[in-house]
């Protein structure tokens, strides 16, 4: 399989193309106008697998530009898909600017508009060309020979760019891959694995596959059904990702905190987590761009929770204006893109021994709030979740529903966080391949309430 021609050309030419688009916008303005533009593009291989075979192989080449035209504190935006042919795209951009020019005067002045006028250029290019998807699939199918593997390989370059009328240009390019797969024993009993990064490493695939194959032996043991109740539990970093992911849903948003809609609002009224819990938006440690959608450059680290207390929030430019706060590089949704929870003192290799008897929760699934103001959340165990006795895995556990608050799980009932933290690249592919990550420890919890 040859690399698609657009993909092959993209890494070298995409940045120049982005600058050409910005130059077209610069020339399209008339006196008194300004613009902001957000560029998002990717050239991705997607290979979906099931039962150790290929279900749907494909490629997607997409380029989008969102243009915001501003005049006299009035503004409007238009997002457009681009063809990659500069002549066609020039025509489209001129049409869009003309259309926005017709809309903007009809808009009210926006009291919450905050524009980045300091010019702070940035440039980041990371990753290296990946092997053709055909070669990777050869390896994956070969390594999983005889196994019921289901999953997806997604790889290729991802591009983000920002430009504005003041001459700011920011460029972020990452060539990444994310191979996510599950090995199934039967029914819902499986082991899930991930291999992701910036450079394909055949040895890592073999090692991870062998590790997963070994875990299948545990999954194949007779399953145990636990009654509802409170159980001691160890949450792996992958399980913690689901909990942290739910907290990211408005939890750290300054707008949600100011309007009392954040699940962590009670932390402003005295509620707190265990003093060993420290959470930050750590852009320097992640894969997200160092700039946000309106051109504000992100601090390397924004403290959110320190020693169990809520000390910060993610403030978008719009929220900054509305509530007289200082913007700190957040996008409009004010969700973390590089969340990091500091590690603790428990050696991850000792987690089973420290758990002693209880639940080893490998993965969680489909979390939601059962009482958002109380930050009480519910969700299911999934994949490799085991009953452990005397530090030894004795049985896989049939799926269980938990329903408990963050103030108990990472508060009064937290026994330890692992010393080691794991960098988990976001594998999301809704609309586009995600550029986000979390760095998380595992957590040992004295009891979690399981209800079904």
């Amino acid at each position: 399989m040859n690399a698609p021609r657009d993909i092959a050309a993209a890494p070298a030419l995409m940045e120049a193309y982005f600058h050409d688009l910005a130059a077209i916008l610069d020339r399209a303005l008339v006196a008194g106008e300004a613009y902001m533009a957000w560029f998002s593009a990717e050239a991705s291989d997607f290979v979906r697998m099931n039962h150790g075979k290929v279900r749907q192989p494909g490629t997607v080449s997409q380029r989008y530009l969102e243009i915001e035209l501003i005049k006299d504190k009035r503004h409007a935006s238009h997002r457009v898909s681009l063809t990659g042919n500069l002549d066609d795209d020039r025509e489209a951009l001129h049409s869009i600017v003309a259309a926005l020019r017709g809309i903007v005067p009809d808009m009210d002045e926006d009291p919450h508009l905050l524009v980045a006028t300091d010019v702070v250029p940035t440039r980041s290019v990371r990753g290296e060309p990946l092997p053709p998807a055909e070669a990777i699939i050869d390896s994956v199918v070969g390594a999983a020979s005889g196994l019921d593997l289901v999953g997806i390989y997604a790889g290729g370059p991802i591009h983000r760019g920002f430009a504005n009328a003041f001459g700011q240009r920011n460029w972020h390019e990452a060539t990444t891959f994310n191979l996510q797969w599950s090995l199934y024993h039967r029914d819902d009993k499986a082991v899930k694995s991930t291999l992701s990064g910036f450079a394909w490493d055949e040895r890592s695939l073999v090692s991870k596959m062998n590790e997963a194959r070994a875990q299948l032996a545990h999954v194949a043991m007779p399953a145990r059904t636990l009654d509802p109740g409170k159980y001691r539990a160890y949450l792996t970093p992958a399980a913690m990702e689901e909990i942290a992911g739910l907290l990211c849903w408005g939890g750290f948003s300054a707008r949600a905190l100011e309007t009392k809609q954040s699940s962590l609002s009670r932390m402003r009224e005295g509620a707190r987590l265990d003093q060993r819990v420290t959470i930050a938006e750590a852009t320097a440690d992640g894969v997200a761009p160092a700039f946000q959608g309106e051109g504000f450059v992100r601090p390397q680290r924004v403290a959110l929770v320190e020693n169990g207390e809520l000390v910060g929030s993610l403030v978008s430019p719009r929220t900054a204006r509305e509530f007289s706060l200082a913007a700190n590089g957040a996008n409009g949704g004010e969700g973390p893109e590089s969340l990091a929870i500091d590690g603790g003192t428990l050696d991850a290799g000792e987690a089973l021994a420290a758990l002693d008897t209880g639940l080893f929760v490998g993965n969680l699934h489909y979390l939601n709030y059962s009482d958002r103001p109380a930050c009480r959340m519910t969700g299911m165990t999934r994949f490799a979740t085991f009953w452990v006795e005397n530090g030894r895995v004795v049985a896989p556990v049939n799926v269980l529903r938990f329903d408990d608050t963050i103030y108990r799980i990472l508060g009064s009932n937290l026994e330890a966080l692992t010393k080691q933290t794991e960098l988990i690249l976001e594998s999301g592919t809704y609309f586009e391949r995600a550029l986000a990550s979390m760095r998380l420890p595992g957590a040992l919890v004295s009891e979690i309430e399981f209800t079904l």
Partner: protein
Amino acid sequence: MPDADRFTFSDLPPLSLDCDFWTLRRVDEMSESFAVRKNVALPHASCTDRGAMATVYAGGGYGYAATGDLSPSGLASALERAAELARATAKYALFDSRTLPRPAPRGEYASPSVGSPMRSRRECYELLMRESRAAPTDPRIVDWEASLAVINATHRLITSEGGDIVQRYRFLFPHMSVTAHADGDTQSRTLYGDRGICQQGGEEILERFGFAGSMRRLADEALELVAAPNCPSGTMDVLLLPDQMILQIHESIGHPLELDRILGDERNFAGTSFVTPDMFGTYRYGSELLNVTFDPTRGEELASYGWDDEGRAAERVHLIRNGILERPLGGATSQVRAGLPGTSNARADNWNRPPIDRMANLNLEAGDATLAEMIAGIEHGVMMETNCSWSIDDSRNKFQFGCERGRLIENGKLGAVVKNPNYRGISASFWRSLKRVGNESTVRVLGSPHCGKGEPSQVIRVGHASPACVFSDVAVFGGEDA
């Protein structure tokens, strides 16, 4: 670059594809969003999204390639790329693409009143601002918003067998929400949930749901909720209104019946299903009152169409009849793989994703009870409305839902408002506790624009029409302080 509805075979350069079958599916979507939050108009946002998906069957393999380059050479290049992929991976193919149907549908579909005039941009903002200003000046009201999104779309599918269909849509997404806060608690009310109002058509949708004038009522209800006691805990009857029923149907009937889940495709991501192929035709999914249809032909419903994205003609069919499971939600490809009958539901959320089995419109058929009769028939229970929380296991069995608002029912009469009404259950047994089904007067045609699934992932529009329903002996509980 012609628009999708003017795009023809003749726009393509001569092709020399060595393949068994190909399709080109072009999507043109233009959207506009209006919103007013706390009496401030948010900036106008619009989008133009155009692209094409080429799909090729070659040598027993299957491949796809999506591109935003809609020039003749760009489309030809995508077809060639898809053919390369099909041939290169044929040796690993999960199924032989030569066994799949090669459709050649021809025709057109259009949303109801697709060309009818809509109010102007200024009039949209005026409507939203009127609603926003109707929220009471009360320090406990901390946030509120009214919004409207409109999408005009043209989808074109051509096939190498001579198929050529054009489908023109207009979708509306009106939304309203109010949040109140007092004494450390926060409660929100929305108009039929988060984008629960989503239909095809025009201005009549706003009228149908009484959009104008709703903000005041929602604000009053949010204030009432923030002062209300928690929902009690216990085993009791629940009366679920349509804006909760749609999630119950979606999560514990729709997803488990998706044939690609049953075939294992989703096991690494969205999950598997407790339903197995041997259940069709005999399995008692629910009580005799349970009748569920797949119906992409109900004009105003969000996921209506003339053909799915593999070119199979839309058709209304029963999935569950009198409680017995009849057929899964599976498109032509899944039907061949499973050897089961299915539905016309192979759908993609945009030009850059391939079709997979999706719900489209999944409806619970009306029964014979009025709302008053259903309330009168409950000795001890809770009426719940407007979903705000949903969670279910990866086999789509153990679920838990939360609603915005509850009202106690005692001895056949509606009582006090309660907050944080939640309930949990197991799909395989829950539907067998269905004991009353509301008549047509209780039906609402709602839906969701946010159904997520697939690798790579897709967010698709689904419609759900449902009456109010009563379930017996359900585990009910409230919020943390209950």
